[in-house]
């Protein structure tokens, strides 16, 4: 993998991921900044405002007209949480030139378009334009308010907030309604400059061949920006064990409850370090053969869904379930009982082998989705040399039963979040 990385500037790298099976190319800019309460909302607005218009395409309809002319080039923006960092991602996906009806150079134009949006936004006197800022602020507020509508996602988010209260990882990836409201045209301009000069940057290219001169052009562009203070390495704090289990219950006008449980794990780190954690979580609650699915859902009918997942970089395990209020306590003790079974190594060889096969099978399918490949590498920014899905498949196949038992032994309940119907219902 090392030969895929090109240094573009201090704290900035280009990553070329060759893949010959697609009809499209993807180029993504991934900016990583520390996740902090004071700046989360500001930073999170950047990918959205930057991809909604630019100095060359001042209105939304003009920009989208251009994207249609580029054979439906897709511009995407997101703000994600990657360990203790915020990932500000902007990408363009465009069909290969060979499919055009008139021989247009689509990829070249699409890359130029995305680069101009990021580096030459629509600004005036060191400030973004008020009409754009107000529109994006409104959308961000509506998005945050709207999170409450989908209870499953909301309950997961609330668990993280409670589990990491006072820590960076507990900060919401899009900030809060109040911090969005405080954003001004000038403060957003400052955040944009900070992103260009300070963020760790990785530019991913997933394509049949490397677009000629792309990394040289970017390198030149970045050389005009002062990146003395640029972040060069990402490091995330592992989850500490809780001194005592914290339980939070909130009531809503809903028919069905949600029960989310957060555990600390002794395994935290990259895909190699935490390979056993991946397998443990899969046997515990990852797939239809898992302990939680077959026992808590199927045999005992305690939940409509009940699954476990791990955040490796944080060393954290989350169990997420939908329960009837009357079954919540029973479900919680049964989930803990299943974890104890994992700790005692009382899972079957069938479960263990199914899990290894299932994980490897899905890792081997990764390279069949261009979007997934791009996301895969953008989530690996903590690693100096990111592992490929095939390499990770190798680590998984080396995991033993004893490794899984040790991974389970290191799991300790930290926080429980319950979202329950009103008691009168």
């Amino acid at each position, binding site marked *: 993998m090392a030969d895929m990385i090109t240094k573009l500037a201090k704290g900035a790298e280009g990553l070329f991921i060759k893949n*010959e*099976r697609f*009809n*499209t190319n993807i180029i993504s800019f991934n900016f990583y900044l520390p996740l902090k309460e004071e700046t989360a909302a500001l930073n999170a607005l950047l990918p959205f405002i930057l991809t909604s218009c630019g100095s060359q395409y001042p*209105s*939304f*309809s003009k920009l*989208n*007209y251009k*994207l*249609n*002319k*580029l*054979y*439906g*080039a*897709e511009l995407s923006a997101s703000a994600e949480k990657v360990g203790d960092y915020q990932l500000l991602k902007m990408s363009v*996906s*465009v*069909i290969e030139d060979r*499919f055009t*009806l008139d021989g247009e150079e689509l990829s070249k134009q699409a890359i130029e378009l995305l680069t101009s949006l990021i580096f030459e936004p629509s600004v005036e006197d060191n400030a973004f334009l008020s*009409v754009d800022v107000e*529109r994006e602020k*409104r*959308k961000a507020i*509506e*998005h945050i*308010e*709207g*999170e*409450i*509508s*989908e*209870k499953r996602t909301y309950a997961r988010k609330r668990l993280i907030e409670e589990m990491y209260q006072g820590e960076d990882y507990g900060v919401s990836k899009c900030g809060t309604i109040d911090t969005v409201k405080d954003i001004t045209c000038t403060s957003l301009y400052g955040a944009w400059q900070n992103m260009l000069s300070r963020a760790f940057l990785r530019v991913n290219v997933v394509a049949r061949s490397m677009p000629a001169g792309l990394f040289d052009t970017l390198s030149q562009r970045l050389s005009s920006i002062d990146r003395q203070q640029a972040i060069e390495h990402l490091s995330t704090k592992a989850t500490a064990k809780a001194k005592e289990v914290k339980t939070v219950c909130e009531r809503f*006008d*809903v*028919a*069905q409850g949600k029960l989310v449980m957060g555990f600390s794990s002794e395994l935290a780190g990259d895909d190699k370090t935490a390979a056993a954690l991946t397998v443990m979580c899969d046997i515990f609650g990852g*797939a*239809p*053969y898992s302990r939680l699915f077959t026992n808590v*859902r199927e045999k005992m*009918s305690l*939940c*409509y869904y009940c699954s476990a997942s791990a955040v490796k970089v944080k060393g954290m395990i989350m169990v997420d379930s*939908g329960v*009837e209020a009357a079954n919540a306590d029973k479900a919680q003790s049964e989930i803990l009982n299943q974890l104890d079974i994992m700790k005692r190594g009382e899972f079957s060889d*069938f479960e263990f082998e*199914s899990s290894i*096969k*299932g994980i*490897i*099978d*899905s890792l*081997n*399918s990764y*390279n*069949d*989705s261009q979007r997934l490949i791009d996301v895969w590498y953008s989530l690996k920014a903590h690693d100096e040399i990111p592992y490929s899905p095939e390499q990770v498949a190798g680590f998984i196949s080396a995991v033993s039963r004893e490794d899984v038992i040790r991974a389970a032994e290191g799991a300790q309940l930290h926080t429980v979040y319950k979202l329950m119907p009103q008691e009168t219902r």
Partner: protein
Amino acid sequence: MNNMKKQLFESPIGESYVLAEHESGLKIYIMEKPQYKSSFAIFGTKYGSIDTCFSKNGGEQVCVPEGIAHFLEHKLFESEDGDAFSKYAKTGASANAFTSFDRTCYLFSCSDKFYENLGILLSFVQSPYFTEATVKKEQGIIGQEIRMYDDSPSWRVMFNMLMQMYHSHPVRIDIAGTTESIAQIDSSLLYKCYETFYNPSNMFICIVGNIDTDKVLSQIEKGILNVAPVTIERGEINEPQTVVSNYVEQKLEVAMPMFCLGFKQKIASPYRRLKSKVCVALLLQIICGDASPLYEKLMNEGLINDDFDCEYFTGRDYAAVIFEGESREPKVVAEEIKKEIARIRVEGVDKKLFSAVKCGMYGDAIRRFNSVEGLAMRLVDCAMFDYDLFEELRLLKTVTYDDVMRRLDVFDEDNAVLSVINPREK
């Protein structure tokens, strides 16, 4: 070598697929993607939630409880010798199933042991095993699933609209049915539905990925049980053109109102042709796609956000255009959409916008050939409606401005329904 009738379909973009027909009437669509590591297979039946009244081989018409197709899907995973999930667990494949209004599909994806997985799929879909005890247990699980959807505003806003749009068409009922309707299901009803709709003559298999067509066909030929084809007569639906009411609202735990605006289309035949679907999709992009003047206006006036979307919702004996999203002012958005349709009827649209949108949709159609899963799903549409997968690309090159503008007749403003989910008062 197998003896099935085979037809090869080719395209100028270098993709091709084979359509084969088994003597039972089963249709098989196979697209090889040798450069891919994974494969995706679907075994499906033309049987969904709207097939509630039917007769088999000219017999008496029976009507079954709502939600039974979905119930049957859940139960089919269980066989006498264990459930299908544990069989797939041995191979590492990832398996699933879904039921929609008009189809039920069983699927898996894998990057290894494809033929073994195909064997599991062929076997469990053809081995029903229902007992009173397993049916009883499933009623509990599905009951919880229905309750989960009761809390989902995006699900409710859509079905509340369908309830007001249709008087009698079963598309108005939740795919999973209701807790009352599924309580009436028993094993004999399940067998009755299974024996009617899970006959190979009413089924299809669609496979895309790193596979060998001849090897797959031989395996299917051996794996399909020898049963006599059936004729299925689906109950006639007497649906008037009018809607039940033009407005419906419900209060749920949401932060901002959600809306769904549907225009019920006057239809003369059960199904829409692909050309109509492509033209309506283009028309919708022109009216309110992200390059349209209406989209920009609604966005800048704070009336919609990125959740705004529209679709042409059509199947057997139903068709509607649906706009949906979140808005502080759903009624204003509905009025703006109606005003824009009226304006376009009179003034037409910018021809440059028409050609840009057409170019964009052509690119989207090419892009869809990237995904083995997406292609398998689209082959299911081909099987359901007898389309050629490459027809869309041809249409997107040839449809004209006038073809598209003629489709403005899908909008019958008198028979529109606005469904709104409002926040509960605190």
